[in-house]
């Protein structure tokens, strides 16, 4: 009960103070929108459906990772984050509460390209239920990576730099733009170490049946990533923030 009250209020505060702020909302819309337009201009003949899994994955990735890394680093530099560490709530509750807001923001980001695509193509044939869970898993793993970055960063600009350092290679290695089979051999194992690879693959399967792995396997692997990242985040917080 107590933990639930704390969880809910941390989530509510973050959504209100960070995610619902006009700059972030507009970023959440403009960013996926400009990716969509860019792709359409670049390959006018290309089917929107082919682009959609990439756009969704990218929007989620960019909406979550740096968002959490930056807001936490911001709270740490103002020292208000100490309040959370000193509150009588478990580290699990704290981590869950902090990533929940970002995950919701990621889901919102994912919805934008879908919304715009729906004007151009008929999306009725997709397996949206499964796609939603894939997006959710991408959002959760990306948020946890954001948290991991926050633990290593001391300043907001560091958090941003580290996020980009992770995000861009991930985009190019996850099989969205260049199929993994066409990547140089030495990079392929790296691709399979990235959660985004599996999330994107499920989306490809659900939207235009071009997946290379079984969705069940991908979900299982994403789940393992989630648990591992969660544990690493928890132990890193314990190690680095309780000095």
């Amino acid at each position, binding site marked *: 009960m107590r933990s639930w009250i704390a969880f*809910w209020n*941390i989530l509510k505060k973050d959504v209100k103070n960070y995610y619902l702020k006009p700059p972030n909302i507009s970023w959440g819309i403009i960013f996926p929108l400009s990716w969509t337009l860019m792709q359409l201009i670049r390959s006018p003949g290309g089917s929107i459906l082919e682009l959609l899994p990439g756009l969704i994955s990218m929007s989620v990735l960019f909406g979550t990772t740096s968002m959490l890394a930056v807001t936490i680093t911001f709270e740490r530099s103002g*020292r*208000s984050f*100490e*309040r959370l560490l000193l509150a009588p709530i*478990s580290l699990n509750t704290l981590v869950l509460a902090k990533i929940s807001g970002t995950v919701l923001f990621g889901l919102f980001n994912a919805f934008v390209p879908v919304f715009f695509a729906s004007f151009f193509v008929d999306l009725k044939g997709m397996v949206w239920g499964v796609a939603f869970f894939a997006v959710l898993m991408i959002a959760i793993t990306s948020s946890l990576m954001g948290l991991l970055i926050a633990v290593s960063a001391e300043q907001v600009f560091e958090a941003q730099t580290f996020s980009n350092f992770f995000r861009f290679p991930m985009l190019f290695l996850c099989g969205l733009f260049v199929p993994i089979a066409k990547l140089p051999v030495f990079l392929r194992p790296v691709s399979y170490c990235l959660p985004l690879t599996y999330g994107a693959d499920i989306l490809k399967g659900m939207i235009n049946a071009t997946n290379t792995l079984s969705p069940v396997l991908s979900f299982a692997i994403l789940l393992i990533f989630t648990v591992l990242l969660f544990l690493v985040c928890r132990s890193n917080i314990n190690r680095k923030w*309780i*000095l």
Partner: protein
Amino acid sequence: MEMVSVRNLKKTYGDVTAVDGISFDIRRGEIFGLLGPNGAGKTSTINMIIGLSRPTGGDIAVNGIDVKKQTKKAQALMGIVPDESNLYNEMDGFDNLCFCAALYGMRKDEREPRARELLEQFRLTEAGKRPFKAYSKGMRRKLTIAAALIHSPKILFLDEPTTGIDVESSRQIRDMIVGLKHQGTTILLTTHYIEEAERICDRIAFLANGQIVASGTVPELMERVTHGHAIRFVTGENAERLAPELQTRFEGSEVMIGADHSLVMETENRQSLLPVMQFFHEKGIDVYEAKELHPSLEDAFVELTGIESSVMKEEKEKGGRR
């Protein structure tokens, strides 16, 4: 059982020893002061007790709970005011208090009346509607203290509550601290204001270089440096030349010349004034003032820690921030 019990507490950062094996107890319902200059290890000590930092060695119990093992259980009893006011800038005063209450599991119908009550008590009702970032330094401090009290903690930790705050706000904060004590809250505060410690603390520990040099009530600390009695005489004309003669006349006394050419006479036992006055009278010297001198806590601090009190004063002027 003591409210807080600290044994052989130690903290090192690399080769810096911030806290060097200190032990003390805080009794229920008292105000305990950790007094020391910058870098003495005050914040390091508090941070270990509240579970924000891990001790390199030693044991801490709060209300009988081992802080190292059951950190969260112990934290539920604590109210914490850090050395910097650290509420959320973008939220207003009222929301800040309600949010802090929620962290301690208080329901909406509990936290809202409590937040209003505290805003009123701290005379921040009007400011409660404004964002924290628009607050003055004194207001920020007061709201941070209010936030620490929101869940009515059994023990309150205040790290330099009045540093950098104007005289009037400091006074209000001190009155509030004493008021809390009367309501039964146990309080640990750190300060480098000697007078502040003297005025409100029931017991004080002098901290220097990570060690407790002395501790006790103010009279107990004074006793350790009071070796006799001293009287200061303010005379009509320069009476410095009489010092040696005065010293010979009153056996066992030691006569020194004060800064303003006054004479200070120290004796083992209490010295009656009349014979001394007669001595001055014989010499044809007028005496306008004779005053028994009592050592101040400042003298005790200087003598016991070897730190010049001016060091602490300079820090006070700088605002004492690292």
